[in-house]
């Protein structure tokens, strides 16, 4: 959900209910709830900050000032300064700036990874569930095989040798994380496939491709999308775990992963270094979850499901 899409949806809330498309109605319904607004503004705020602040700030997220290292955030401890509202890290870099830039990269990694997982898992699940039979058996055995290798083993095995760059990390995480989606997708598709409207569409002359991609995919993606939000956070954390193992994004590029991983050593002396990204992560995730939950409720209302 982009900020842009949301604003238009909000703007449309004033329009006549009848002529509006379904997606707009869902958005409008969600918009009506306080929770959604909190989540939306929280997310928008944090996103805007991440996009704008590093551009206009006079500071540089990679500029070190060793003499001003480990300054605490505002009003906490000794030596805080307005110049660094969230303090500085072990090399005297501004934590606010680093967290925001880190958020950019972490979101990039988290979202792209989940999109990749969704794309692969969704397709595999779609084909397995729709085609059934041998296709299903073969695809699902591959999925099981992939699922049975812990993602982290695969990730460190590959990243340990091929040096970790952002695209490499996205690729590895995406390629190892898809099986869960494939399984979910498959079960949803199998349930939907038996429904009459699919049969109806066939009689209408719709090709398999059309049924799979135009009818089933959008339908099955929505419930999965809500799981995916949780996974975006999980992938952001996962990147942090890789950073912790020394297999994360390389400095000086800040990501939540390497900020937390590097700051971990200073947890006792300078707790804010490793904690700030976590706070940002929580705010981002809580906003996403709030929006997601509100959207889900609104969607259920519009589609006549349970509220």
């Amino acid at each position, binding site marked *: 959900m982009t900020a842009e899409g949301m604003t238009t949806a909000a703007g449309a809330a004033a329009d006549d209910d009848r002529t509006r498309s379904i997606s707009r109605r869902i958005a409008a319904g969600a918009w009506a709830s306080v929770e959604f607004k909190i989540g939306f503004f929280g997310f928008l705020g944090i996103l805007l900050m991440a996009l704008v602040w590093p551009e206009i700030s006079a500071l540089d997220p*990679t500029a070190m000032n060793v003499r001003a*290292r480990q300054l605490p955030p505002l009003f906490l401890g000794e030596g805080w300064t307005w110049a660094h509202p969230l303090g500085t890290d072990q090399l005297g870099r501004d934590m606010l700036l680093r967290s925001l830039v880190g958020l950019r990269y972490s979101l990039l990694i988290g979202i792209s990874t989940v999109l990749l997982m969704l794309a692969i898992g969704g397709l595999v699940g779609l084909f397995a569930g729709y085609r059934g039979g041998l296709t299903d058996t073969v695809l699902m055995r591959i999925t099981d095989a992939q699922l049975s290798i812990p993602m982290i083993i695969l990730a460190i095995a590959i990243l340990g040798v091929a040096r970790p760059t952002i695209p490499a990390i996205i690729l590895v995480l995406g390629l190892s994380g898809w099986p869960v989606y494939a399984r979910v997708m498959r079960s949803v598709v199998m349930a939907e496939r038996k429904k009459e409207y699919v049969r109806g569409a066939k009689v209408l002359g719709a090709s398999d491709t059309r049924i799979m991609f135009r009818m089933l995919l959008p339908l099955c993606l929505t419930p999965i999308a809500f799981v995916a939000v949780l996974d975006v956070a999980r992938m952001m954390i996962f990147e942090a775990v890789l950073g912790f193992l020394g297999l994360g994004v*390389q400095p*000086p590029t800040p990501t939540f992963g390497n900020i937390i991983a590097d700051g971990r050593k200073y947890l006792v002396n300078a707790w804010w270094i490793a904690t700030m990204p976590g706070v940002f992560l929580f705010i981002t995730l809580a906003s996403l979850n709030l929006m997601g939950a509100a959207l889900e409720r609104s969607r259920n209302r519009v589609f006549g499901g349970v509220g």
Partner: protein
Amino acid sequence: MIDRRRFLGAAGAGLGLTQINPRFFIDSAYAQAGQPIVFLSAENITGNWDPTAHTTLSQKNIEGYVMGFLARAPMRPEDPGEMNYELAESIELLDGSRLQITLKSGITFHDGEPFSARDVKATFEYGAQPDRPAQWYPGPTDSFEVTTPDDLTVIVDTSKGGYSASLFIFLAAYLPMMSAKDIEAGPDGPLSQRLNGTGPFRFVEQRGNDTILEAFPDYFQGAPKVSGVTFSFVGDATTRILSMLNGQASIIERLEPEQLETLEQEPNIKFSKLVSVENKYLWFRCSKPPFDNPLLRKAACHAIDRSIILEILGEAGSPSSNFISPIKFGYIDLENYPEYDPEECQRLLAEAGYPGGEGLPELEYITSVGFYPKTKEYGEIITALLQEQGFPVTLNVMEVAAWNERLYDRPGGGPGHMIDCGWSTGSPEPDLVLRTHFHSSSKRITGIVDEEIDAALDRERSAATLEEREQLIQTDLTPMLADKAPAYSLFTSVMIHAIQSDLDGLFIYPDGSIDASEADFA
């Protein structure tokens, strides 16, 4: 001999009794009497117990507990050359090429075999074999001759090799004495299976990441007071600190300044800070472009502000301006050592044909994370400083194993263009660093082949007296190295150990090995 063990009077020592605390789980697990010392190591050990098969510091430290040495070098900055005899009664130069070692009597190995001149001869000859990974200077086995006139006398004759026998003096503190019987048993014999020495602790077994040592009651200087030493590899620095904090560890090594700060607030922890034999270097890959050009290497050196690095390192680093540690024989603050000078850097860059860094290829700077303190942090600083001067550097931070795989020179030059590494040897002998790294016969990391340096190294090795040798090192060899800059020594490490306050009587050597023969829990 008498003053070779100094009780730790270092910071924080002797502060009160152990705090009483409801650690019911821990207490139940640790309450037994005669508890061993638990040492947490930052570095993994190899699986091969043959002391000549590795250069791994942590394993050298284990050998420090188990093995005996002819002499030990406490290497304090006041007197870097000081040597205390251990297994040797005396070490004397008979003439320029002959060294006589007299041994103490009545010493036995842990396996019960008596220690004699035979063992010294076998150790010297085995340890100098060219195929030994830890092959030690001064020359291969066929360049000297060892004779044993009686069971307690060893004479080393270096006339074949053409170098001074005095070189063996400092090495006495470097090579642990192995049993001739073990060496004779050959490659598949017990040498690689277990440690067998004359030291205060006996090797029991390796249990996962833990090396279990127990007190050797027949130690010739008296049985140790503690029941043993458990030497554990714990890869994560934070984990080590935490186990120190909750009392599970007795000693931890390689503290970072912030961790020191954390622990200093604890009343029951004391510290040992020692300027070590280890210098940290920025090694240039001298055998491939662009750093085959000394001008460029020097330009890079001038781009680096070592004072910032030292600031980051805090107490973990000590300034030094030479390629060897101040506690090594022959150290001097070099006058021509490259200092931070952007203008000079730009000048050299232009002279090398890369004005402002123009035309330089993408440069890779490899560093490790997890072992040495602050490598990543100062790596980032060095990267930033080099970039400031126009070097297109990218930093590549690797976990130790990957870094290790890339560390050494190989045909066509090692990976990357610069790599971070320290070098530490438990002896005042400077050639263990200089010859190892900069002689074209060894060129471990840099891959440098330079006839002038080779000649300078040979000159100082062949010096007739220690004084002359010191002179040559200080005025001939190291200034030349500073000029050609095959590597850039950044600082000398300060080894910081944290020790539970109730553990007294430890002696820590500047290479990190510990004498715990008189240690005891208060």
